[in-house]
């Protein structure tokens, strides 16, 4: 088989039948961007309604469908697949492998995503409307009170889970089995490490999510009573199972982002990553701890005090390895010969804003304080700082960083920087005020609010529109680069960049390594 060294096939069949990690990575990336735009337009509807107090544009039921689908599409459709796409493109190149370990399954993992989202999006047009119970789909809202479309929602979650599990099995097999000779574990780039650990988290928790939606399905259609106290079950059980998945899930989202930033900051500081070993251990510690903190999302459901205390201290413990990471990134920059090209700007933006999100997380982790903050806009501000300024910023950084390697063309630096600054400013105008309205008592997931919150909400909406618009610029930048960017064939686009991906030709050939490179 190794004897057929063909380039890409022509036409649509290249994409439908491909087994090439680069093709599949590209499809993941474009798909996730499409979902980002879809989820983003839901967010625009939400912010437009919240522009002023009172009900203007949509009715409350539709508003709830928007918050629900926004969360689901962004988490499962935009962020997760985008990092899987990045893993597909980069991991084989970074470890000196010819492709992913199980290439045909790789293609399947991708192709089941579009139908799953087709099913999910089609719920908007079903009788009773789309799911309106929030992206966390708490029972009994998602069982007793759910619209009929919930069944389709359940099956689409099943398919997404299948895709994630196959994708992560593939990544595990690739990293464990396909490294070039000499590429020992402790020589792997941080991005590979963070993805390996993320993949373990995924195979561990996606099946648990599948269990949760299966119980819902049984309660809705087959008369069981898992989440119904009348039969001896408990709605709070749903929250436990969901967050046993959900908290590791937030680290599934952020760990690959950590990996990206750990590649980019050294490159533009022209220094090796500070404390590589401690980075690896910190990542593993975060992953491990993420299994024992889930109930910090449930401080107000009436857990026994012992439970509140356990989950409070365990949660605070995560701040330690997270702090190690932030310390290491800052130390990498310390006295480095730094330059501030677009990827670096996004990486620094990530660093600053993610740290703010970490601190608000720490505030939320204090159980007695969380009784006040819970389900307020403060929580919304917290998780947008970690997920948008964390995961999405690092994704933008990654695209600018590797785009020249992918397509052999350089993006326009001025346009890139413009994208960064508009995003950065828009993001902060959108989400910084939410901390204050949250602390002042504005609840989340509500289409109308008290007059006292009017100014800050208007500000927030304006910021959101600016941030939204900046993504159009992002799209423009990427397309302009691919069609008309300045051609480059330098193997090493960035003089400070390290790693095998910078030793191959630019643009990266369809099959990177036909014989394994030697890693010293």
């Amino acid at each position, binding site marked *: *088989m*190794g004897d057929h*060294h063909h380039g890409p*096939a022509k036409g649509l069949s290249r994409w*439908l*039948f491909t*087994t090439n990690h680069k093709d599949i990575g590209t499809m993941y990336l474009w798909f996730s961007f499409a979902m980002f735009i879809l989820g983003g337009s839901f967010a625009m509807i939400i912010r437009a309604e919240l522009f002023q107090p009172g009900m203007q544009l949509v009715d409350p039921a539709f508003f709830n469908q928007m918050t629900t689908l926004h969360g689901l599409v962004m988490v499962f459709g935009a962020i997760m697949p985008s990092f899987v796409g990045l893993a597909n493109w980069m991991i084989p190149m970074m470890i000196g*492998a*010819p*492709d992913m*370990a*199980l290439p*045909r*399954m790789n*293609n*399947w993992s*991708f*192709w*089941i995503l579009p*139908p799953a989202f087709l*099913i999910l999006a089609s719920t908007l047009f079903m009788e009773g409307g789309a799911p309106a119970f929030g992206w966390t789909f708490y029972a009994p809202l998602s069982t*007793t009170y759910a619209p009929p479309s919930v069944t*389709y929602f359940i*099956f*689409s979650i*099943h398919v997404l889970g299948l895709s994630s*599990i196959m994708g992560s*099995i593939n990544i*595990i*097999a690739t990293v464990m089995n*396909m490294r*070039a*000779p000499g590429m020992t574990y402790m020589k792997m780039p941080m991005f590979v490490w963070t993805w390996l650990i993320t993949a373990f988290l995924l*195979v*561990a*928790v996606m*099946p*648990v999510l599948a*269990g949760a939606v299966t*119980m819902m399905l*049984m309660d809705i*259609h087959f*008369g*069981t*009573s*898992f989440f*119904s*106290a*009348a*039969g*001896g*079950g*408990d709605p709070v*059980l749903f929250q436990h*199972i969901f967050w*046993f998945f959900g908290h590791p899930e937030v680290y599934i989202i952020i760990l690959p982002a950590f990996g990206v930033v750990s590649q980019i900051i050294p490159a533009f500081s022209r220094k090796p990553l500070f404390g590589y070993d401690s980075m690896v251990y910190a990542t593993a510690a975060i992953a491990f701890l993420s299994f024992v903190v889930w109930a910090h999302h449930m401080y107000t459901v*009436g857990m*026994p005090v012992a439970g509140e205390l356990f989950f409070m201290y365990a949660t605070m413990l995560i701040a330690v390895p997270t702090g190690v990471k932030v310390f290491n990134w800052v130390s990498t920059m310390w006295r480095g010969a730094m330059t501030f090209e677009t990827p670096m700007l996004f990486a620094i933006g990530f660093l600053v804003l993610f740290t703010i999100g970490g601190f608000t997380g720490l505030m939320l982790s204090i159980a007695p304080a969380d009784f006040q903050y819970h389900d307020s806009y403060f929580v919304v501000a917290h998780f947008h700082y970690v997920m948008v300024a964390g995961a999405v910023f690092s994704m933008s950084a990654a695209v600018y960083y590797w785009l020249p390697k992918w397509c052999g063309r350089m993006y326009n630096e001025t346009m890139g920087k413009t994208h960064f600054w508009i995003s950065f400013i828009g993001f902060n105008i959108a989400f910084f005020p939410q901390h204050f309205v949250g602390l002042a008592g504005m609840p989340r997931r509500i289409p109308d609010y008290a007059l006292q919150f009017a100014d800050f909400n208007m500000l927030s909406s304006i910021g959101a529109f600016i941030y939204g618009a900046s993504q159009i610029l992002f799209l423009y930048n990427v397309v302009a680069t691919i069609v008309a960017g300045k051609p480059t064939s330098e193997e090493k686009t960035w003089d400070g960049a390290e790693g095998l991906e910078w030793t191959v030709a630019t643009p990266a050939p369809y099959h990177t*390594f036909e*014989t394994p490179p030697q890693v010293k």
Partner: protein
Amino acid sequence: MTTQSSTEYEKYYVPEKSKMAICATIGLFLSTYGAASIMNDMTFGDPGVETNSWTIFWVGLFFFSATLFAWFRIAIKENIAGLNSAQLKKSYVLGMFWFIFSEVMFFLAFFGALFYLRNLVGPWLAGEGEGGRMNHLLWEGFEYNWPMSLTPQEAVGGAANQPIANMGSFTSAEKSMAFGEAAAWYLWLPMWNTLVLLSSSVTVHIAHMGILDGNKRKFNLWLGISVVLGMLFVGLQILEYYEAYAHYGLTLNSGIYGSTFFMLTGFHGFHVVMGMTMLLIQWLRSVKGGHFTADDHFGFEASSWYWHFVDVVWVFLFLFVYIL
């Protein structure tokens, strides 16, 4: 192919394009869409209206199974043609291992639910501890025991008297599957089930020893016995469900005891059917196709790991669902 680590890295495996993924996707899409529609017809639909949900489901499932069949066939043919490098074989091993791990986590969700419901929720509903304040507001008169003999809904006098909404009515079973309620130990089905499944794990192991010695006769014989034992288990399980519905009043509606009982044993049973099918295919491959040699029998090995996994799950089930 011999397994030499020095040749392991000589040349990289770069696979051909494949139509399998797209075909499997179409099958999966149709069958999940069909399944969801069937359930919605059942619960929310108008019984007078004809739908084509079942047709969509069956077409999808057929397409999906046919694709998987073709896919595995190709993978097997490639292996027989000697195309698979030692490295690829190791990827298959890793893939199977982590797939089984994900299955373990799936069962963990249901076991976790069982522990939480039995040890915390039950007592709380009956008024115990910090969670118990709701008892006299919502479920006055509910007393907790396991297997649950009276659901909270029954304790307050049925769905109509219930202060909160829920879907459906939950009745309790007259009799449970627990050991204590069997007429005599030798009439207790779960014990026979355990014996059958545990011995099938042993017979699969003997078959494995056989193939390692290159003894195909031994291999075919013991693998065949394992498949028969698997079928016996499924048969006994069907009998048990029949008993539950027909004579014990134990159904999916039987409150949380019924829910956990049927979901845990049901998913386990489903996995037994899958594992048994896998073993049966390996047996057919060996007997009809002459596949497998002493150092090349991964298809069998993977299936046997799966079988042992299903067995281990049963041990926990036996302990926590039937005995304790």
